[in-house]
């Protein structure tokens, strides 16, 4: 039984990790926290549901379509809203925060108008159970973990071994210098926002066959991935992954032992980590 809890925790970790990774990527290039990230996750799952259940396409097509569509949506949001509001001053980050939180409401409202407020299910995509010496794990959950690993591997390859990845890393470190070397930083920003939102949509798609889908499902994963990147250190990709894994496991394992009280423990733990190590586990201290 206990192993089942740990596997559930791992599945949650995968979702938080994928979301947190996208958020950190956006943060490192744009210098902002995208508070509507959870809503892109929700929209991803919703689009997938429509493509699979209403249009009748196979799951893989829905996955790709949803990631693509939400990626483009994220690019449009960056180009036409965030970039215009983000004036280079102390108040820029403030207005971006307000705008993305307003977008959160906007997307939730739009989704409940389009799809209704009720929870929907996608049905099993990969039926079957893997039995390992008395422990039963559904194929579905294994697939989520493998898919997440694949996405992470692809992201590491793109960031580490391609010209675009090099440009992204350069723009994250020194935007001015990158611009001097011919990197179009504005375009990189739009691209990164698209990638981040597509990753959120992918996380939503992974989750859709396991948990119910509704317009309000973005809130908790959003807060959790926020906590994950804060634990890991804002701006550190490794930190986001480690933070996501820690939070996902804590969330299900503590909840198994302490039920409702687990949230207090979770938040208290986050506060404790921040007070001992304000820059997060993998962050560099900033003054």
């Amino acid at each position, binding site marked *: 039984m206990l192993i089942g809890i740990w596997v559930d925790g791992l599945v949650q970790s995968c979702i938080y990790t994928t979301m947190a990774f996208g958020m950190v990527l956006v943060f490192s290039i744009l210098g902002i*926290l995208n508070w509507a990230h959870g809503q892109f996750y929700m929209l991803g799952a919703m689009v997938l549901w429509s493509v699979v259940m209403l249009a009748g396409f196979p799951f893989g097509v829905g996955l790709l379509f949803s990631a693509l569509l939400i990626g483009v949506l994220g690019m449009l949001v960056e180009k036409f*809203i965030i970039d*215009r*509001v983000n*004036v*280079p*001053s*102390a*108040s820029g980050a*403030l*207005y971006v*925060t*307000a*705008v993305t*939180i*307003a*977008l*959160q*409401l*906007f*997307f*939730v*409202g*739009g*989704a*409940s*108008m389009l799809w*209704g*407020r009720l929870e929907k299910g996608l049905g099993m995509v990969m039926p079957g159970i893997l039995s390992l010496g008395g422990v039963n794990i559904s194929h579905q959950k294994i697939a989520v973990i493998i898919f997440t690993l694949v996405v992470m591997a692809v992201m590491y390859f793109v960031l580490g071994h391609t010209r675009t990845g090099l440009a992204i890393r350069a723009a994250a470190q020194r935007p001015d210098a990158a611009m001097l070397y011919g990197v179009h930083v504005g375009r990189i920003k739009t691209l990164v926002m698209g990638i981040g939102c597509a990753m959120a949509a992918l996380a939503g798609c992974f989750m859709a066959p396991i948990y119910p889908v509704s*317009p309000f499902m973005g809130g908790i994963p959003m*807060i959790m991935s*926020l*906590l994950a990147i*804060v634990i890991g250190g*804002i701006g550190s990709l490794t930190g986001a992954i480690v933070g996501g894994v820690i939070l996902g496991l804590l969330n299900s394992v503590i909840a198994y032992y302490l039920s*409702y*009280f687990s*949230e*207090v423990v979770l*938040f*208290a733990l*986050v*506060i404790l980590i*921040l*007070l001992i190590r*304000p820059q997060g586990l993998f962050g560099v201290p900033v*003054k």
Partner: protein
Amino acid sequence: MNPHIDWRNTFPKIVACILAAPALIVPLLTDNPATLSTMILSGIWAVVAMGFTLILWTGQFSLGQAAFMAIGGYTSGILSARLGWPFWPSFLTAGLVSGAVACAVGAVVLRVGGFYFSIITLALGEIVRIIAMQWQSVTRGTRGLVAYPPEAISLGFIKIDFEATPVPYYYFMIVLVAVTGLIYWRIGKSRLGGTFFSVAINPMLAEHQGIHLMKFRVMAFTVAGVFTGLAGSFYAHFLQAVTPYMLGIPESIQVMIMSIVGGVSSLVAGPIIGSVVLYNLSQFLQRAGSDLQTSGFVLEGIQPLVFGGAVVCILLFLPRGSGLIDLWTRFWKRVYKEVDFYELPEDLEEETNTH
């Protein structure tokens, strides 16, 4: 005429006072409880949004203001319902307790600045809510506490009865907003406000000038905590209940949006404008939505959609995203045909913020 009066400065203020004066006689014009309660609640949110702006002036971004409202509401709820205290002492104690919690939390948490502070205050809000939900023996858990309305006050010729109509609450709200606004306005105009601002704009320079950053951050957080706690107590007693679901993360975020849309350049007017405009907008949308629903035209989620869209548009189309209060400043600049001084500070700000 006194030649020393600066009419360019004074005239807009007089116009503002004349525009604000009708707020005093609203209960004479209408006795519709729905209208009055909408205005009372927007006043309460204005007080809370002012606290958010004050904390923002020290450069910190608090996402847990609703938690202090909840602390205030629960304190006065427990004191009046459990211990049988009268309203007024429990109201004031609520402010003190909330301020004390803000001071204690701030002294620990304000060591980490920026985003981390936002996240910790967010977590704090959740912790307060969960404690309120789980500490059944004191807070009655999810069932919540009943917060009785204030006792009737007898002034000899007239008896102020809080239970019959919302009118006494309305004047109570006006007094609360006025007192809070006056204190915040004095803080903003004084040397203290300037110090807060310098802590926000350039902490390193401020520290080198001999300003103890922590002291001023904790000070602003505590002052905001006291008034937010008072507002929370008033909120609980006006709604006559306090439950864990009333004040959570959405409310904290709502306060933040109100303050930013109203304009953070002003400590009093901006939050008031923002909360009045946005709270009324959301109430109007809610009522319009339910009207549509009763006429058989179901549009789920129209309220958050329009509200979010409106906020995005306000921030997008107001010049440089500076909030509603900036329209007022710009209007008077246009009237006096002054040069737009905004160019200069923006450049300076840019310079100080490029690392």
